[in-house]
């Protein structure tokens, strides 16, 4: 056992750091460091820069154009990006649909979709949740009916992150009504420009437009957009979920936030808050080691176990707690909230400059324990899969 990095790991880390130092697009960095909202163009520029370096497929095998990095390298890459305050890499293409395509798609599909993901030429969205089916994903009712060489899709998907910017959406759709609900589900890729696709914004309590409902009305989808076999969509969806490595990806960003918070709190002379920050620091350090333990397991067994549910739960709890403590640090100045974009440059209130951002994040992050399988569902999974209850 050894907690330190090898020299090779440290060299790798320096390479990442050097990219961030030199090639992380300056206009994105500037906004990001100030906590300003990024435009669609900013986000695209950031991803294109990563793609240019060949790092977009950071979690892909080399045969599909990925980096072929070890788990430790992926961890270092994500942590360094987080520590440096880079925007999150959008998971929908590279972490979600990409691995599904190269694992279950046909050669045609691989050629057609993978390069655009690696070059960030297509912006993907995820079509899983529906207005009527949240945690109970298998109850989804969006229908895809085969007509000749097309599917006709009707229904809706909701909580679709950044669908307003996206080119493509991958969907779980019902192609058959079966007794076992999971068996009638298929995995279908839909071009967002298809006639009959409509995007309706959902404004969240922080006032932001980040998520949407996507409506499908008689949308004609070529049959070649079906991944794998009809009725096997549930298997692919589960593969995708298991591939998510929540909690590790965010550690770097959370450490950066924590350090900011520590700096703020060190000037407040507030022992209660200092104590809470210490507790959170310990929680975060446990989370990081838990993530590393999971990586060790992946290296040994080839895949993460249901333990990743623990990371999801603890990770979101820590994220949320961190946003709470920023709000507490803002004290009475947490009363003012100008919305997710913050104050106009010429009308800042007198008071801590982080207050508005703190509130935006506190409100926005309430979602983290709900999405991606609510924390209640994660506990059900742990109870069943790990504890055998």
């Amino acid at each position: 056992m050894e907690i330190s990095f090898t020299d090779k790991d440290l060299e790798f880390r320096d390479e990442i750091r050097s990219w961030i130092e030199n090639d992380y697009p300056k206009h994105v960095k500037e906004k990001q460091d100030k906590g300003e909202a990024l435009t669609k163009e900013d986000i695209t520029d950031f991803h294109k820069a990563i793609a240019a370096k060949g790092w977009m497929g950071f979690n892909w095998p080399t045969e599909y154009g990925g980096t072929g990095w070890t788990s430790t390298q992926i961890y270092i890459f994500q942590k360094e990006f987080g520590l440096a305050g880079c925007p999150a890499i959008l998971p929908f293409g590279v972490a979600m649909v990409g691995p599904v395509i190269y694992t279950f798609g046909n050669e045609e599909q691989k050629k057609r979709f993978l390069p655009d993901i690696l070059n960030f030429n297509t912006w993907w969205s995820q079509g899983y949740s529906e207005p009527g089916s949240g945690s109970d994903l298998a109850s989804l009712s969006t229908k895809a009916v085969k007509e000749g060489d097309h599917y006709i899709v009707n229904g809706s998907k909701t909580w679709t992150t950044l669908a307003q910017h996206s080119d493509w959406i991958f969907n779980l759709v019902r192609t058959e009504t079966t007794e076992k609900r999971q068996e009638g589900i298929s995995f279908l890729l839909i071009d967002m420009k298809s006639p009959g696709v409509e995007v309706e914004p959902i404004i969240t309590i922080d006032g932001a437009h980040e998520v949407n409902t996507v409506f499908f009305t008689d949308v004609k989808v070529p049959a070649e957009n079906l991944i794998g076999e009809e009725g096997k969509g549930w298997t692919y969806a589960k593969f995708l979920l298991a591939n998510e490595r929540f909690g590790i990806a965010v550690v770097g960003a959370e450490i950066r936030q924590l350090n900011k918070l520590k700096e703020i709190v060190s000037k407040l002379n507030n022992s209660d808050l200092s104590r809470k920050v210490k507790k959170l620091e310990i929680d975060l350090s446990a989370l990081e080691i838990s993530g590393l333990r999971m990586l060790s397991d992946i290296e040994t067994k080839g895949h993460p176990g249901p333990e990743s549910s623990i990371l999801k739960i603890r990770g979101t709890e820590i994220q949320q707690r961190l946003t709470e403590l920023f709000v507490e640090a803002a004290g009475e100045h947490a009363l003012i909230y100008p919305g997710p974009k913050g104050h106009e440059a010429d009308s800042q209130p007198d008071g801590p400059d982080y207050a508005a951002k703190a509130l935006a994040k506190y409100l926005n992050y309430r979602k983290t324990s709900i999405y991606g399988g609510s924390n209640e569902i994660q506990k059900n999974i742990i109870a069943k899969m790990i504890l055998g209850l």
Partner: protein
Amino acid sequence: MDLNFSDEQKMLREEIQKFCMSDYTFEKREEIIKSGEGFDRDFWKLFSELGWLSLPFNEDSGGFGCGPVELSILFEEFGKVLVLEPYLSTVVLSGYIIDNSSFSQRVEFVEAITSGNKHVSLAYIEPNQNFDHADPETSAVNDGENIIINGKKSLVLNGGNADDLIVWVSYDDKKALILIDKEQSGLSFIEFPTVDGQTCTEISFKDVNVSKDAILAIGDEAEGLLNEAINLATLCVSAESIGCMTACYMKTIEYTKGRQQFGQPISKFQVLQHRMVDMFMETEVCKSLLYKAMLECDSNQDTKSKSVSALKYQIGTSGRLVSQEAVQLHGGMGVSDEMLIGHYLKKLVAIDALFGNSDYHLKKY
């Protein structure tokens, strides 16, 4: 000992409930927020007609002489539908100070307030301080018959709509409360939206010149009035919190009964049941502390400020828990701005920021 509300108090609650339930819809509330006015002037007029604006004022100034119990009833009901109107600012904070001061135009001012024609805001918070505003940097100095005020106040509730301001200043080696017409020259304002859909104002005072007649109170009297007003306002927002929490758990029960997942209403999942029980119990604990605080305030007991601190501490802690759980159990709908549930969470953030948060009051207790 008697912990039952009187018939008059029950009738008052019913009257307020009736208004809140029928007139204060989510859509109406959204409309008020979008108007940018901070509140609805017709509702304010109605509050006046119903006598609600007169509740806490002394009878000799034309009020009903009601106390903390009636105010708690009002605010608890207001909390359930998230009433935006600036009752706290105009009636409770400023109203209390004016009504209990020896100010010469006291009765006229109270009448102007209760008739709904005048708004007054209390400017006591300063940006470089946090929760403790005993020593204002904003100062008033003598200049013959007049005094000159310089300084800055922030987080002035409803400051944009106020006709007059009560300003908390250092005056020689004492403190004072001074009443200033908002049109007075030397004042400048920046208005900000609050997290709970209201507005507050940052006010700068540059050589503001007012007559000494504008002094409402000096020294111990001024400190006493300010502390009493804040204590009463703390009680009121705590009652309002309890209204929010009550609505949170009731709406969560209703939502989970209607939401089907895995072939049954999610209200049937035992884990969610126990968590709703916890929400309910937290609310009940707060309610018990409210009873204690409001009755001790009512009978002006020595321990009242301590009881209010206990209450505000618990409100902060329980309010956060209950509103977060309400959002969580509503799932995606909980974080949508189009459902009332997330607005309770925002209201409870605002209340925690007002008059000292949970930690502050635990320390004070």
